[in-house]
């Protein structure tokens, strides 16, 4: 499945410019930064269009930048990419279908791309 994916990236307390640059360098289209302010702490939200391969590469970059894990939720109309420090550092958890959770420990871009395409084609 090579259709571009609509993704949303969420994180707190990380460099926004670096996260944006990573999206741009992976060829993200229609990149939108959602400006927001809160009464107390607030997360960063960015929207973009990205191919599965670009998403896989992006996840590798974020794992390195954020020094945490990343959760990728493919169940909805948009792919949610969210920093998560509750899963092991360097791992990616992909949530798909009817709440199936697949944990990949220190995956390669190839593994990620294959997994994402496989799961998106099953749910598509």
């Amino acid at each position: 499945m090579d259709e571009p994916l609509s993704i949303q990236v969420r994180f707190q307390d990380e460099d926004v410019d670096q996260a944006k640059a990573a999206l741009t360098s992976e060829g993200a289209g229609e990149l939108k930064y959602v400006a927001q302010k809160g009464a107390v702490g607030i997360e960063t939200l960015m929207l973009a269009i990205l191919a599965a391969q670009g998403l896989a590469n992006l996840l590798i970059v974020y794992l390195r930048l954020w020094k945490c894990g990343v959760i990728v939720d493919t169940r909805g109309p948009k792919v949610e990419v969210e920093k998560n420090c509750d899963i092991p550092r360097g791992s990616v958890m992909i949530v798909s279908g009817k709440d199936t959770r697949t944990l990949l420990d220190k995956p390669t871009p190839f593994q990620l791309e294959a997994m994402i395409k496989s799961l998106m084609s099953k749910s598509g």
Partner: protein
Amino acid sequence: MEHSTGVGSQIPNWTADAQAFVAYEQERAYRKIAEELGFGPDAAKAFNYLSHGVMPASHADPEKLKHLLGDVWPGGEASWQVFSANTRQLLELLFAYEPTSAFEDINLYRSMILTLLTLAMPIGADEGQTEPLPLVASLPSGDVNAKILVEPTSMQPIVFFEQGLFSFVFDFVLVISRSLSRFDPVQMDALDAPSILPRKLPLSPEVVDFLYSSVLSYVAQGNPKTSKQSNLSPDHNLLLAVRLVQELEWFIMAHELAHLSEGHLSEAAGDAAGNWKQEYAADAIAFRRLAHRAQATSGTWVLAAWACDSAVLMFQLLELALQTLAFGNAESLWTSRTHPPAAYRLSALRGIGLFDRVPSPSWPALQAFGDLGSLTNDVLTDLWAHIEPRLLEDFEKGARPSPLWRAKIAANFTRASERRNG
């Protein structure tokens, strides 16, 4: 689902993009709650489980409030007639509003509309809110927060209030109201002259238990709506409680509107110093607005200012609770790049700039504001002295903040030992 702009209101029309954005965020939030509740990813099930249904207009009948106050209106019969007529007119306007999303809580939505329309009106020296007004929407998490953002396609600003914010404001106000002797309603509007202020009551085990269980349900369980809590009645301070809830919500909404009017949302994400400056500015602008509006409507700015002060004190209580349950006795440092800690925000509100923010800095009014702030400080210090050991005990037994808070804790706190070790 209809979306109404109401009668003669300034609420903008919802664009399809804004509707879709809000619906997506709400459904996503309910899906998370559904997973916590063991419903799987069934957002609709979580929504139906947590929904209280539509509050009928009769529930907000001003006669009910008057009855709870002993059928005697504090300001006298003429004042009652004005209040009753205005309230009924406002309810008629409000109940014309329908939410735009299947996952919107209609009661909270209408409450937010009421808050927004109230602040939009020019009153006294406050010019009201200039166009464009934001849209409003609620989110169902237990996060005690509000935010304003710009929907990136339609560029419509949207204010979100979390369920947790509404609930925590309510619980906090109940605690304050019950911890003070009766605040004479007539005195509440006469604070520009030497006044008789309430005093701190002896600490009540019921109030301590209520605050402890409330704080624990927010911090450890993450969503008070999904956990059972006892109720606390405001008893002798019902009218104070009603006014404080209203003013605290106004302050928080006004803080978000200040970000909009000051252009903070059109700027790129700034550095920590720039972000902190914007937060201080939003607090100050909200404080000023409410103080001026109160002076024009009730003759004194003090109660409104005290409410703004109390809102930030409420955030400080939450920070302490998060810190305690996350780190126990270990020292931690505040490291947020987006917000100053509540203690600094409180100092800023009470500091030298106060004279520029209030309409009539008379000595009695300044003293009353200072005294009321000290009073709530003392109340919460006493309560915290009883609650902190219980939270530490919970920490020792393995209790930790709900996953809802972990990103926020990581963003806002660093263990002191980690910072020293570099």
